[in-house]
């Protein structure tokens, strides 16, 4: 799936994560495949419920079971299939090689301990260094993520931090592990634009500085993808519909869903107050997905075959993959 000679950092193949909901099977992630290369910011974009978070939680093996279960596929990280690891081995990977930033930092920060204590513990666990040294490092990390008076703020509790500062603290925590892969799930969605700009610049800047580090950036915001990612996968209905380097994706989207999304965005270069092109209908429920193409019922290019047969994700141009019958040789 990858054109480069170098083996990708992460290779997800045919990942299937299902949930049992009210006696029915919700195929939240249903055959997802993608690669993340060394030193790359890879975007995973899609509307709510499309399976982005379940994909990232599957990589970390944090799917609550029951009701959820990874029922198929493989996730190779530097050659090791994470799905074959024991719970203990997986915990080591999570503490060292792959770390995660969530949308709501309060879920990752413990409210009863100071920010400093949590950072120091994380750093000590990871590096084995002494208390004093870890505290020094913790202050350094906090000021690196732009928290003024870092040394003093180490003694604050999470609730004494604003939303933006908590998000920074969590980034400091995630980065102090010096991970090879940073998974950021909607890291700025709850923040104001000026703070979002600060945090994204910070994360991308640090990712560039840290040699070999890659990032999986999950978002519903295509503009955030355009600003930060090198390659991007578009999800809909538990499946990846398109994978592409970011420039051709925005300039010449292959999938009708991607095209529709891009057209419907308000954009400063577009004539103001003119009707926006829309994607008709609503996102179908995960429990009532159509048998053929998941997007067929909202698609302007739908034909009879789309309802009958689900298209495969295929390489249409070098490095560009799309799941649509429009691009089948024998198709259109």
């Amino acid at each position, binding site marked *: 799936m990858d054109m480069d000679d170098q083996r990708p950092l992460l290779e997800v193949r045919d990942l299937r994560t299902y949930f049992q909901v009210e006696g029915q099977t919700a195929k939240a992630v249903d055959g997802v495949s993608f690669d993340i290369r060394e030193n790359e910011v890879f975007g995973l974009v899609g509307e709510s419920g499309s399976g982005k978070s379940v994909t990232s939680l599957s990589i970390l093996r944090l799917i609550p079971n029951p009701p959820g279960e990874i029922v198929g596929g493989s996730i190779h990280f530097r050659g090791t299939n994470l799905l074959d690891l024991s719970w203990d081995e997986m915990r080591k990977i999570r503490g060292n090689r792959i770390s995660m930033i969530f949308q709501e930092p309060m879920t990752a920060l413990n409210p009863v301990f100071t920010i400093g204590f949590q950072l120091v513990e994380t750093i000590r666990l990871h590096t084995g260094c002494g208390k004093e040294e870890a505290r020094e490092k913790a202050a350094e990390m906090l000021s690196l993520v732009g928290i003024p008076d870092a040394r003093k703020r180490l003694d604050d509790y999470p609730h004494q931090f604003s939303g933006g500062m908590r998000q920074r603290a969590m980034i400091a925590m995630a980065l102090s592990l010096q991970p090879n892969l940073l998974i950021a799930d909607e890291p700025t969605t709850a923040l104001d634009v000026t703070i979002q*700009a600060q945090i994204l610049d910070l994360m991308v800047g640090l990712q560039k500085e840290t040699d070999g580090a890659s990032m999986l950036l999950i978002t519903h915001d295509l503009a955030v993808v355009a600003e930060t990612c090198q390659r991007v996968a578009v999800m809909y209905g538990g499946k990846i519909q398109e994978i592409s380097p970011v420039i051709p994706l925005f300039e010449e989207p292959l999938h009708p869903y991607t095209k529709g999304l891009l057209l419907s965005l308000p954009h400063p270069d577009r004539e103001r107050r003119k009707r926006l092109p829309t994607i008709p209908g609503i996102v179908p429920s995960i429990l009532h997905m159509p048998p053929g193409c998941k997007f067929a019922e909202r698609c302007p290019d739908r034909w009879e075959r789309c309802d009958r047969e689900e298209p495969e994700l295929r390489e249409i141009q070098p490095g560009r993959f799309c799941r649509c019958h429009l691009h089948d040789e024998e198709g259109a």
Partner: protein
Amino acid sequence: METTMDTDKTLSKTLLEFQELKVHFPIHAGVFLRRVGEVKAVDGVSFALREGETLGLVGESGCGKTTTGKAIIRLVEPTGGKILFDSEKMGKVDLCPMTRSELRPIRSEIQMIFQDPYSSLNPRWSVGDIVAEPLKVHEPGMGHKEREERVAWLLEKVGLTGEQAHRYPHEFSGGQRQRVGIARALATRPRLVIADEPVSALDVSIQAQVINLMQDLQEEFGLTYLFIAHDLSVVEHISHRIAVMYLGNLMEIGPAEVLYRNPIHPYTKALISAVPLPDPRKTRPDRIQLQGEPPSPLNKPSGCAFRTRCPYAEPSCAEERPPLLDAGSDHQVACPIMMRE
């Protein structure tokens, strides 16, 4: 065509005007709930809404957008200033000194749409009952049959069907619920609609549908919108004019095009340059990185509220709250420093 429309709006009459509006919330603490301070949520805001326009109200969370909107229909108590409304029923009135019962007849002329299509609809009521409720209050003389017909008509106007009146909110998607909220707001034929983040909770593919719907309804019914949002791309698209707030103060107001392309206030510049563009070839070399975060509204800086984060601040900025200065082309800016040239 766009420009003539905007010029028309300049000429059209004022529907509502804030004059030095203040909404301060007292803060109580301790066992005896002593008053220990106040949140100056809205702190002397003046601007006008013109009939038939969409005025976008933007600014970061906590700057007082929602409080400004809620003050109009007395969901919060104004503590100072005036809200002059040109009522069809009562003529020009100041809403601030009126009691809630005095306001009641006017309430049919001003309606509100809320951000969260999940919590703003009563889950135990059918969609028909939800849309009919304002009719029962404001048009009590209306017969049952007529009301049902009106509800069905309203539902169709917002892109739902009359049959859906018997369904309950949980049976609808987020976008459909927002349509129900819009139908409810339109029931009493309002002239002014306060829309507080009406599309912020919706998916990208649904946002455009609701934005188009709101524009269609505006044209059909001659509505005036106070469109509150933190998403500048959406506001830039839908608004005739945009007003920018920071910590309870108005920083800049002007035609959407002018304000978006040529902002003058340093805060507006920073805000606009922080908006990511859906164009991977466009980087923002001009991005103005604001340091830190807004101060707490509990202890606002003296003078200009923005001066503690402003790259151009001078000692004089601490002295008094800068007045709105005229920058021409229907554009006003509360920054004497930038206006000096």
